[in-house]
């Protein structure tokens, strides 16, 4: 098994006619993902390499049965695209777009969580997407570094995720699903949302959690793990050397006041009995040891 994306995924790409949207949409298709449609307002009735393009997500859903969307549109219109996907009944919305204003995300995420009756899940924005190796890839994670297996991975970062997946694969530790929840201050899903799914997933034996400085998502996740998880969790945190008050690339990665430091997060994890690796390479070693 896997979480969020898999054999049942029927993908629509919002922004499929754009340069990046078509490049990554087609890479996902080549990986084996069932790419059924694209949406670009005003470009309905055209197609991109044999994939039909529609003017609205609702049309795409009714014509193709799409149940998952990847959002690849510019930041100024991205919140609108997410709301449109939700309105059309899409279950899993993966927003890759970076630099969406926090105000737009606060409103969009509030609306989704309030009105989705447990139906719609937003992953991202500013995330690398979700891959269930061997089944489906929705996003920009390079499929070739993954291997099917039983390690679940959830991360706030993109390339750091690739680095850690690469280390896992090299040690023969395949993955059930790798989820990038994104580096924004207000993500659609946070660690806890994904940990819940991994805990319930038969195909996942252990979860790797990759955190970074800023906010308190890691601290809340550590409490959740301590109270609700039976599966082992291994953590890694980036940003021990980051200076306070500077935004380290991700809008969400900023140490403000005494909150959000890597050291505080490490302490929280260790208090919950979670082992914290000191570098990406060590993650794979600890996972191997834990799984025996």
């Amino acid at each position: 098994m896997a979480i969020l994306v898999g054999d049942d995924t029927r993908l629509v790409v919002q922004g499929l006619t754009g340069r990046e949207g078509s490049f990554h949409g087609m890479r996902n298709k080549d990986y084996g993902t069932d790419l059924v449609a694209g949406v670009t307002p005003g470009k309905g009735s055209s197609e991109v390499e044999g994939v039909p393009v529609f003017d609205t997500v609702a049309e795409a859903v009714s014509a193709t049965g799409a149940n998952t969307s990847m959002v690849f549109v510019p930041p100024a219109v991205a919140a609108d695209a997410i709301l449109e996907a939700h309105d059309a009944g899409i279950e899993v919305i993966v927003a890759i777009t970076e630099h969406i204003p926090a105000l737009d995300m606060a409103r969009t995420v509030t609306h989704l969580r309030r009105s989705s009756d447990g139906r719609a899940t937003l992953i991202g924005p500013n995330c690398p997407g979700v891959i269930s190796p061997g089944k489906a890839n929705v996003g920009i994670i390079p499929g070739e570094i993954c291997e099917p297996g039983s390690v679940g991975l959830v991360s706030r970062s993109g390339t750091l995720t690739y680095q850690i997946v690469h280390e896992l694969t090299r040690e023969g530790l395949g993955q059930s699903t790798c989820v990038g929840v994104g580096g924004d201050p207000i993500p659609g899903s946070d660690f806890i949302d994904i940990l819940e799914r991994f805990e319930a997933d038969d195909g996942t034996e252990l979860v790797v959690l990759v955190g970074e400085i800023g906010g308190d998502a890691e601290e809340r996740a550590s409490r959740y793990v301590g109270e609700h998880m039976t599966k082992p969790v291994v953590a890694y945190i980036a940003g021990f050397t980051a200076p306070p008050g500077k935004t380290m690339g991700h809008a969400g990665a900023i140490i403000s006041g005494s909150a959000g430091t890597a050291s505080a997060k490490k302490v929280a994890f260790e208090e919950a009995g979670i082992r914290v690796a000191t570098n990406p390479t060590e993650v794979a070693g600890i996972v191997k040891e834990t799984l025996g």
Partner: protein
Amino acid sequence: MDLFEYQGKELLRKSGVPVPEGRVASTPEEASSAARSLGGKVVVKAQVQVGGRGKAGGIKPAANPDEAAGVAEQIIGMDIKGHKVRRVLVERAGDIKAEYYCSFLLDRSQRTFLGIMSAEGGVEIEEIADTAPEKIARVHIDPLLGMSPFHARKLVFEAGIDPGARKEAIAVLPKLYEAFVALDASLIEVNPLVLTGEGRVMALDAKVSLDDSAAFRHPNFDELRSAHEISAQERAAKEKGLNYIKLEGDVGIIGNGAGLVMSTLDVVKAAGGEPANFLDVGGGADADVLSSALEVITSDDNVKSVLINIFGGITRGDLVAEGIIDALGRLDIHTPIVVRLDGTNAEQGHKMLDEAPHEMLRSATTMLEGADKAVELARGDAP
């Protein structure tokens, strides 16, 4: 983007929040004429983005225009915690009866907005949180519904604001929230919000941080940013679209993706080195971007070695190699460069680098090996 006090206050004034009348001055003469136009008795405030200005001597009263010039002379050019004072804000002085604290910000863990108020103004909110947490009133504001009048009443009554200031405070808070939303701010902190002798409530200080991602719908962001000072490297990086932060060490770092770069900094530190910077070339960086990144890093005299750590996804290893080769050909580089490449087209990239040998170029097969090599090179050891 964090604004200077005078910038934040100007924006608040336009949103209907009462602020003291004031003028910005960058010379003693300007300060003196500002004081004259404000009626003589003023306060001269250093414009720097760091707390503790008052204690450092950056805020001083002046009874008349001549005194204002003298005080400005002392303050302009001062160094406050590493921030050089370029301008002062000259404000009409008033009679202050009480100081309060209030702020609006994004509450990440609740995915919503948060209003905070306290009757204990003038000190850092962290300090109040430590010493008198019961004196802090908080209210969550739904981003879809916005602020209701009861939110303001709740803040004012729970914080125990003086009866004489309540009515005006209840009127001012929604204006601050409106400004917070209209400006796409991530923080508006007014500390202190004061009650004047005349019974008025006004913002005596303002810390405003704006969400850079919203710049596309705020044409004034660029102008606000132009008042900020950044290092030559930071300016060059910005012009080339690189995400660069200067740090104190001597190992230059280039990577792709914020998380991987932060991790690279940590690994270099663990290897006994000190990172000279954070530089994220972003996703899908091409040869030009890599070449510019090397130019920015090697123009910093503190940098004794460079570690390039790329895990290709959208970013292609062959283009990274092309950028490195271009920079080595174009610039006079005497700093050793350690390259670690993995992911998309990494093999092709390694081959290109092998075919274009340069005495400053070293390769590493893993991130940890790369960090070790770069740290040794910065120390002057030759691995």
